Structure formats: structure tokens, C-alpha cells
């Protein structure tokens, strides 16, 4: 690769100002005559009304569609469908696809300025990343509130706040919102923002697909949330048939919401995978790719290939409700197991969609705060891809208790246990990196260490659960619930927090307050464990999930868990307060490279220029050479690191 390091003299350093006049598209037109969040909301609302009217017009007189409840599924579905279409039209997502029909190509758009760009359909991956930050935090907040409602109900085994139907709706909505949020919580905000920076690219491969992924993800949130107004759905987040077929109109929101968010996940994974494969900077061979990028590549592959199955499963369910097919109805030639198979064929890779980015984040953070290279880099990369591949072959372990052929159990028990090997690789890489290190216990590092602690518990209980005898005993109990909260919340959400504390100074230009951050970490870590560890015991003692009445003898443990959960919720409020305090009330400018990282993302100017790098960097060595004073810098900017620095030479400011 022979990219010249010479800088053209006529350009302004670091600003990447547009060379000439640009056309202003509808999406960026100033003022009311443009497309933005407001127009999206208005058109989504109008689309909803139109869809409802249309559905009632064409199917209102068919009693076998309306059924005993008088609820018209066609109208419900069309309302949601046209709501999503209206949303996309309103935000401007369809402008370019329509222009292409007339042979037009992309308009070189002048980027919107100021805060308004965060409310528009934008092609800047950094803005999309920030949009995802807000979007996923909104998901997290909503799902968290529902969790508080669940724990409030479980304070007493017999005195109830909700009726059983409302309780299961809350549980279902909590699970669905959280799982859909979790699939995108790292790939969306951090993947979109950081991947181009970390691979030395100025852009994403398909920025419109990237923007589409966020806005359809938001639409999916509205669709899933709308279930509450339709009376919810009683199936839990797994949506099992035949209960699915017996459920009310809220089920359509669930099924369509999954399909819509699935489209967003496919789009996000597709764009990121293509970007990583093609847009790596010169010299960035596969053995020089940062581990976070490896994890995102593995995740993006899973998103792209596994999510179409979820989309199909959702589509089949919608057809069962709207045009009365019987794909999941045993009595009419369908099968409820079909849903279970399709759902878990996506659902288990989804587990790794959630786990892998978390490990990628901590693998990026640990070397920075231990000043050591990442231990066994290639093993970690192989582990990531190994987990991604094997995750397609384990889904039937979710059906051990659902009536699969018993002869199939040993096979899927074996594949499930096999997957613990590459997962163990990834875990041990972290342990190897921590071994004999002198750690700087900054907040991102604390969250990373907490991940290793939590995931150890979550992972080992997972190995137990993959064994058929244990699975038979604890299936459907709080033991399982605790296991997956330890892996998803204890793993992914802790890693997400580590990532936010680590990268927000880059993304926003401001440091998070350390004192508040420490309070947030310790309260979250302690109360997380106090909330979920007792649930292992509760589960072993026989309390089933999704049931609001339980044995009196378990009240003590449940109350302990509930009170801890409220404190855990309060710890998130601390985080939100810290976010507001550090970004708005008392903002403190972040240094260009506050953690003294060698990562490429820290070598560009702060705030990051529109095109990320003034010069495309040339990667000259491995990414984690922290313990080698005098080692060459990771990248060569041709004498012009955007911050004017030496682009990541080792051992500069941190005293070991």
C-alpha cells in the first residue's frame, strides 16, 4: 500500500471542510421544511390511523377474522405496518431509494449542524452512534422500570398489586424490550461510532443502511411498546405457540416488533461486517485488528445470518394472526414446535450476539489499564469466531424439556458443552492479561473486572444447565433466570458501562465524573449480585419463572432480592445523574487521550472531525504493545497525527 503521507497544502488541517457548494437535501433542510424526528412522528401517527381505517375497511365484516373479541387483526397489523412506513418516510429514509428508481445517485449532502443533526437521518457514523446511545438507554430505562414493577409484585407471595394477567404482560414486555435492547446495545452505539475509527476508516461502507438500522430499530421499539396499549402478550419474551396463537392483539405488536427490529439488526450487522472486511486501513492485516473489532465482526456475522430466521418466524406468526394460516397450530397441520425451533435458531446465536461484544470491550480496556499486551491475541480472535460458528449448532438445548426426540438430547448437550471451549479461551485470555499486572483501577477497569466475576458465575451455571439432568431439574425456574441475568446483565451491561466510561470522553469530549462513577460502579456491582445471586437459591428451591404467587417460605429471599433490585435501579439513576452532571451541568473537557491508549480511535483529533482522520493511517505493528518501551507506534499518520501527536507511541505519560 502506497498511500502518500504528504499533506495537500490547500486544505485546512483537521477540519475536513467541504470543498465546494453542496446540494441541500430534504433531510438536512433547515427549519420546518425538512425531515426530522417531528415529521417522522407525525407521519407515523397518520400512518397508524390510515392503517387502522384501511384494515377495518377491508376486513371489518369478516367475523372469522374479528373472532369473539371483535378485534380486527388485519386492522391492528396494517396500523402498525403503516406506522413504520410513515416513520421511515417522515425521517427521510426512503428519499434515496426512491431517487435511485430514476437513476439518480447519492446527493453530496451538507451535514446538519448542532444538536438538530441528532434528530435527523444522518450519514455520519458518529452521529448514528450517539443516536444509538440515547435509543438503547431509553430501552434500558423502560425495561428497567418494568423490572421494578416485577420485583414490587414479588414482595409478597399472596398480597398482590397486579392481577395475574397484568403481571405476565409486564414480565413479557420487560423481557422483550431488554432482549431487543441487548442485541444492539454495543453494536449500535459503540460499534457504529468506534469501528471506523478503530480500523482507520473515514466512513462506513453503507452509511444509509447504517442510518436505516437505527431508525427502524426505533420504530421497532415503538411497535413492541405498543403491545401495552393492546393488552400486552402473555407468552414471556419467547412467545411460545400455542399460547401465541391464543393471545390477543398485543401479540401482533410482539411479532411485528421482532420482525421490524430484526430488519434493523440485519442492516446494522450487514453494514458493519462489510465495513470491517473492506475498509481497514492499509497495513491492518487480520492479526492487527483490535479485539473489539474482532468481536463486532463475529457479532455482525451472527446478526446478518441468524436474524433472517427470526424475521421469518415473526412473519409466520403474523400470518397466523392476520390471514389465519396455521403454521404454528397443531390441529390444522402446523406445529408449535416450529416456532420453538425457528425462534431458538436465532435465539441462541443471539446469546452470543450479546456476549461477544462485551468481551471485545473488556479485551480492549484491560491492556490499557494493565499496560500489558493482550494475552494470546490470536486465541482470543479464534475464540470469537469459534463461538460465532458453534452458536448455530446448539439451539435445541432450549427444547430439552419441550418434547424433542430424547435421542437428540446428547448431541445438543455435546455441542453446547463444546461451545464452552472457545468461550473459555476468551475468558482465559482476559485472565492471562490480568496475570501479574499492575492495574490502574479506573472506572472502566472496575467494570471490566466485574464482568469477569459475574460471567464466571453466569458461565459456570450455564455449563450445568447444558447438562440434561440438571436442565430437567431446574428448567423454567429462577435458577435459569438468574443464570441469564448473570451473563447478559452481569456480562454485557457491565461491559457496556465499562465501554461508556471508557469511550464517552472520546464521543462527547467530556470526562465522566469519577466520584459519581465510583458510586455508580460499587452500588451497581454489589446490588446486582445481591439481587440475582439469591435467585439461584430461590430457583433451586422450586420457584418458577413468570408466576406471581409463590411459597410463603420463599418470601424472605424474594424480599431480599426485591429490595436489592430497587437499590440496583437506584444505581442506574446515579449513572443517569452522572451523565447529566458530567455532560451538561458541570462539563469538564477530556484530554485528547485520557487513558493513554494506543488505540487508533484515540489518535485522531478531539472532537473527531467529520472524516475522522486527516490522513488515512498506515498500520505498522500489532495493536497492544504496551509493555515495550520504544516499540513503534501502532499507526503512521504520515507525520500528521490529527491531534498533532505521535500517534500512539508506547510509554508516554502513564507511570507504571
Amino acid at each position, binding site marked *: *500500500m*502506497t*498511500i*502518500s503521507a*504528504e499533506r495537500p497544502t*490547500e*486544505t*485546512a488541517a483537521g477540519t*475536513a471542510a467541504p*470543498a465546494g457548494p453542496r446540494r441541500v437535501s430534504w433531510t438536512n433542510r433547515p427549519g420546518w421544511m425538512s425531515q426530522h424526528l417531528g415529521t417522522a412522528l407525525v407521519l407515523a401517527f397518520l400512518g397508524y390511523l390510515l392503517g387502522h381505517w384501511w384494515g377495518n375497511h377491508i376486513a371489518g365484516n369478516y367475523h372469522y377474522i374479528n373472532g369473539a373479541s371483535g378485534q380486527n387483526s388485519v386492522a391492528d397489523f396494517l396500523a402498525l405496518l403503516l406506522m413504520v412506513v410513515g416513520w421511515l418516510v417522515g425521517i427521510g429514509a426512503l428519499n*434515496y431509494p426512491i431517487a*435511485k*428508481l*430514476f*437513476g*439518480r*445517485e*447519492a446527493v453530496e449532502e451538507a451535514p446538519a449542524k448542532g444538536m438538530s443533526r441528532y434528530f435527523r437521518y444522518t*450519514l455520519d457514523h458518529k452521529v448514528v452512534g450517539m443516536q444509538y446511545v440515547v435509543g438503547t438507554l431509553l430501552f434500558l430505562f423502560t425495561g428497567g422500570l418494568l423490572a421494578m414493577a416485577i420485583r414490587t409484585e414479588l414482595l409478597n407471595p399472596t398480597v398482590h398489586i397486579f392481577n395475574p394477567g397484568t403481571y405476565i404482560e409486564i414480565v413479557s414486555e420487560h423481557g422483550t424490550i431488554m432482549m431487543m435492547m441487548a442485541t444492539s446495545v454495543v453494536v449500535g452505539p459503540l460499534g457504529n461510532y468506534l469501528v471506523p475509527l478503530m480500523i482507520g*476508516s*473515514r*466512513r462506513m*461502507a*453503507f452509511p*444509509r*443502511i447504517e442510518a436505516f438500522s437505527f431508525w427502524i430499530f426505533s420504530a421497532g421499539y415503538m411497535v413492541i411498546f405498543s403491545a401495552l396499549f393492546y393488552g400486552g402478550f402473555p407468552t414471556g419474551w419467547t412467545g411460545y405457540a400455542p399460547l401465541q396463537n391464543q393471545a390477543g392483539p398485543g401479540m401482533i405488536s410482539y411479532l411485528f416488533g421482532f420482525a421490524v427490529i430484526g430488519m434493523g439488526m440485519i442492516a446494522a450487522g*450487514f453494514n458493519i*461486517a*462489510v*465495513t470491517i472486511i*473492506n*475498509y481497514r486501513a*492499509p497495513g491492518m492485516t487480520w492479526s492487527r485488528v483490535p479485539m473489539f473489532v474482532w468481536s463486532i465482526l463475529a457479532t455482525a456475522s451472527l446478526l*446478518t*445470518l441468524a436474524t*433472517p*430466521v427470526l424475521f*421469518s418466524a415473526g*412473519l*409466520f406468526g403474523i*400470518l397466523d394472526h392476520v*390471514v*389465519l*394460516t*396455521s*403454521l404454528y*397450530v*397443531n*390441529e*390444522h*397441520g*402446523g*406445529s408449535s*414446535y*416450529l416456532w420453538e*425451533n*425457528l425462534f431458538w*435458531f436465532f435465539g441462541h446465536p443471539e446469546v452470543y450476539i450479546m456476549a461477544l461484544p462485551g468481551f471485545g470491550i473488556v479485551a480492549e480496556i484491560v491492556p490499557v489499564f494493565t499496560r500489558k499486551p493482550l494475552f494470546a491475541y490470536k486465541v482470543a480472535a479464534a475464540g470469537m469466531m469459534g463461538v460465532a460458528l458453534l452458536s448455530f449448532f446448539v439451539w435445541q438445548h432450549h427444547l430439552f424439556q419441550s418434547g424433542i426426540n430424547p435421542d437428540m438430547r446428547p448431541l445438543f448437550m455435546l455441542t453446547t458443552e463444546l461451545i464452552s471451549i472457545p468461550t473459555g479461551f476468551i475468558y482465559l485470555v482476559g485472565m492471562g492479561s490480568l496475570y501479574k499486572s499492575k492495574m490502574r483501577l479506573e472506572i472502566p477497569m472496575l467494570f471490566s473486572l466485574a464482568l469477569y466475576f459475574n460471567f464466571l458465575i453466569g458461565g459456570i451455571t450455564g455449563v450445568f444447565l447444558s447438562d440434561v439432568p440438571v436442565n430437567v431439574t431446574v428448567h423454567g425456574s429462577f435458577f435459569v433466570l438468574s443464570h441469564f441475568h448473570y451473563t447478559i446483565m452481569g456480562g454485557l451491561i457491565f461491559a457496556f458501562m465499562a465501554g461508556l466510561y471508557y469511550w464517552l470522553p472520546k464521543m462527547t469530549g467530556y470526562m465522566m465524573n469519577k466520584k459519581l462513577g465510583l458510586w455508580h460502579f460499587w452500588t451497581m456491582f454489589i446490588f446486582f449480585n445481591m439481587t440475582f445471586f439469591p435467585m439461584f437459591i430461590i430457583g433451586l428451591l422450586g420457584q418458577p419463572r413468570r408466576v406471581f404467587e409463590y411459597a410463603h417460605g420463599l418470601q424472605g429471599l424474594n424480599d431480599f432480592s426485591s429490595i436489592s433490585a430497587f437499590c440496583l435501579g437506584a444505581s442506574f439513576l446515579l449513572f443517569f445523574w452522572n451523565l447529566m452532571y458530567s455532560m451538561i451541568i458541570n462539563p469538564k473537557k477530556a484530554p485528547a487521550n485520557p487513558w493513554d491508549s494506543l488505540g487508533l480511535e484515540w489518535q485522531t483529533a478531539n472532537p473527531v472531525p467529520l*472524516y475522522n482522520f486527516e490522513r*488515512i493511517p498506515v498500520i505498522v505493528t500489532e495493536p497492544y504493545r504496551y509493555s515495550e518501551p520504544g516499540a513503534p507506534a501502532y499507526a503512521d499518520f504520515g507525520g500528521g497525527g490529527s491531534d498533532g501527536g505521535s500517534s500512539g507511541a508506547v510509554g508516554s505519560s502513564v507511570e507504571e
Partner: protein
Amino acid sequence: MTDTYKDSTAPNATPEEREFEFRSHIGSIWTGGRLAIGVATFMYASLAFAYFYLRSSNNSHLWRIPGQLAPLYYGWTILICMLVMAGLGMYGHSRLRKGFTNDFQVAGWTGVAAGLIALFFQIWELVVLPFYPGSSGYASTFVAFVVMNIMTIVFATYWLETAVARSLRLRKELGGTRPELSSAHTARSFRANVSSMSYYLGYVGIISIGFFLMFYVQ
């Protein structure tokens, strides 16, 4: 693929950087086209799984009511139209590579017409189905197949139409130079797009034959 090169480079990029980014862009079109096939494969695989799963389960002996079959004339018409669209798209691509833009355009427009006819019949077939959607496992999977096929036809026809429309406009933008001969980035990007589209259409052709055999041949 949907994104183009025109707005991709930083204004202060050096010529080498522009060339590097352009090569990345061409690689993205190549990778994106193949990945789109991967996405479609997993979607159709889930449908095939549903078909064979329900067929082997035969719950309530209702996999298929004896004699139940989707209208064969419609099936043939749709299959032929899809094959024509796929074949013409691929043929157009091969002609474009040999320097015959007009052939590409004629083949492309004819392919678009074939796609639209396939779309019409695929939708209309739902109106004339001789069975209710929920009457059997076969009937249900068939309806699901129709919906999926509509999405596939729409996407394939859209891709072909936008490529042909682009070739018309591109000639004007290149000042009369034919897109197959120009070395301008935008023309090379266009050719890469057509190449990816051609692969995708080939895939659509294969899929349509496979699912025709599954659903229309008893």
C-alpha cells in the same frame, strides 16, 4: 448495492487515498452482494425448514389434504417470469462487460417487465387459491412462501430497475461516454454494482426453481 461512491471521500483526500477508498468501495459492493445472498439464504432456509418440518410431522394428518395443490399455471408463469428476469439480468451484465450498453439496457428493461409480471401474478395467485390459508400445513407454508417470494421479486426487480435507470443517467453524466468504457470511478462503481446484481439474480433463479419444485410439484 444501495450506496455509491459519489459522496464518500473527504474533500482533502490525496489521490492515493481516493484510490484506496475507491478500492474499498468496490470491495464493499462485492462483499455486500454476496452477503445479501447469505441473508436471503437463511430466510429461505427457514421456510424450507418449515416446509419439511411440517411435512414430516404431519400433525392431525393435515400436512396436505389429498389433491390440494397451488394453481400450476400461475406457478409456471411466475417461475418463467422470474427465470426470464434473472436470465436477462445476467445476460445484460455479460453484454455490458463486452461493451454493449444498449443490450444491457434492453435486456434490463425486459427483465424489469418480467419481474413486474411475476409480481402481478404472484399477488393475484392469492386471490385464486383453491384452498384456505389455514386448511393444512402445506397451505400455510405456501402462503408464507408467496409473501416471501413477493419480497424477493420486489427487491430483485428494484435492483435491476435502478441499475438500468442508472446506466441511462450515467451516460449523460459522463458527457456521452458509455459507462462500460469509462474509467471514471462512478462508472466503475456502476459496473461493480451490476456484477453483484447479476450474482444475486442468478441466486434468485436457482431459488425460484427449488421452491417451485417444492410447492407446485406433487
